[in-house]
């Protein structure tokens, strides 16, 4: 099916573009883009797994998502904690906030290293 092959190639290229942007200059927005594009692409590959030979590509896309999970979790949880700490407990939250900031930085660096090694389109 021509339409389907075209759609797969289009989403594959979109993921590759998002990956390149993220490894070129890693930030929260680009991390979000690479995750969203990857999720959409993976969902397409899962939908049509019965008629396409894409097992290896599917695994690679899943690995890419896995590589960014820790960075995403740290970022989201950090923002949420910053916005929801009760005033009376601001002091108590400091160690956890600091831990999350370190986690965010390290996990983003790690995601960047892993994604630098991956390719999704020629």
């Amino acid at each position, binding site marked *: 099916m021509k339409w*389907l092959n075209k759609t797969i190639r289009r989403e594959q290229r979109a993921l590759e573009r998002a990956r390149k942007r993220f490894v070129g200059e890693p930030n929260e927005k680009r991390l979000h883009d690479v995750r969203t594009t990857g999720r*959409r692409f993976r969902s397409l590959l899962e*939908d*049509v797994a*019965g008629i396409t030979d894409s097992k290896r590509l599917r695994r690679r896309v899943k690995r890419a998502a896995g590589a960014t999970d820790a960075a995403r979790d740290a970022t989201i*949880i950090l923002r949420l904690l910053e916005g*929801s700490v*009760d005033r009376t407990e601001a002091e108590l939250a400091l160690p956890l906030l600091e831990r999350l900031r370190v986690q965010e930085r390290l996990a983003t660096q790690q995601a960047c290293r892993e994604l630098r090694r991956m390719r999704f389109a020629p």
Partner: protein
Amino acid sequence: MKAARIELENVDDLHELVERIVDTRLQEARALAGGLETREKQALHDFRIACKRLRYALERFQELYIAPEAIADRLSQLQDALGEAHDRDVLLSILPPSMAATERRLKSDREACVNRAVVHWGELQQLMQTLDSHRI
């Protein structure tokens, strides 16, 4: 939760292919909607992922599968509400026990998120009834 494999062999018509995909993802979401009643963390997470797969399928194949645009929009709102509940679950799991006031706030916010999701799902149920009659 792993996506169900869709039987597509011998399907050579694109519209039939899209119908099978959307139907399967719709069934998956409906089968997991019980998570909204139990409000249990993992059940809500699985339901959210199933809704995400359904929304992606509807958006991707929108030119081939006529479904009211409101369905994808409402699915997106439902996902947002469930995603916010999930984020609170993650934070609650690492919050120091000494932060009781923050914990209460997060738990209350989490319940509000799930309540919002319940409302969106109720509206979606009605919208989705029209799916069967909107196919090409």
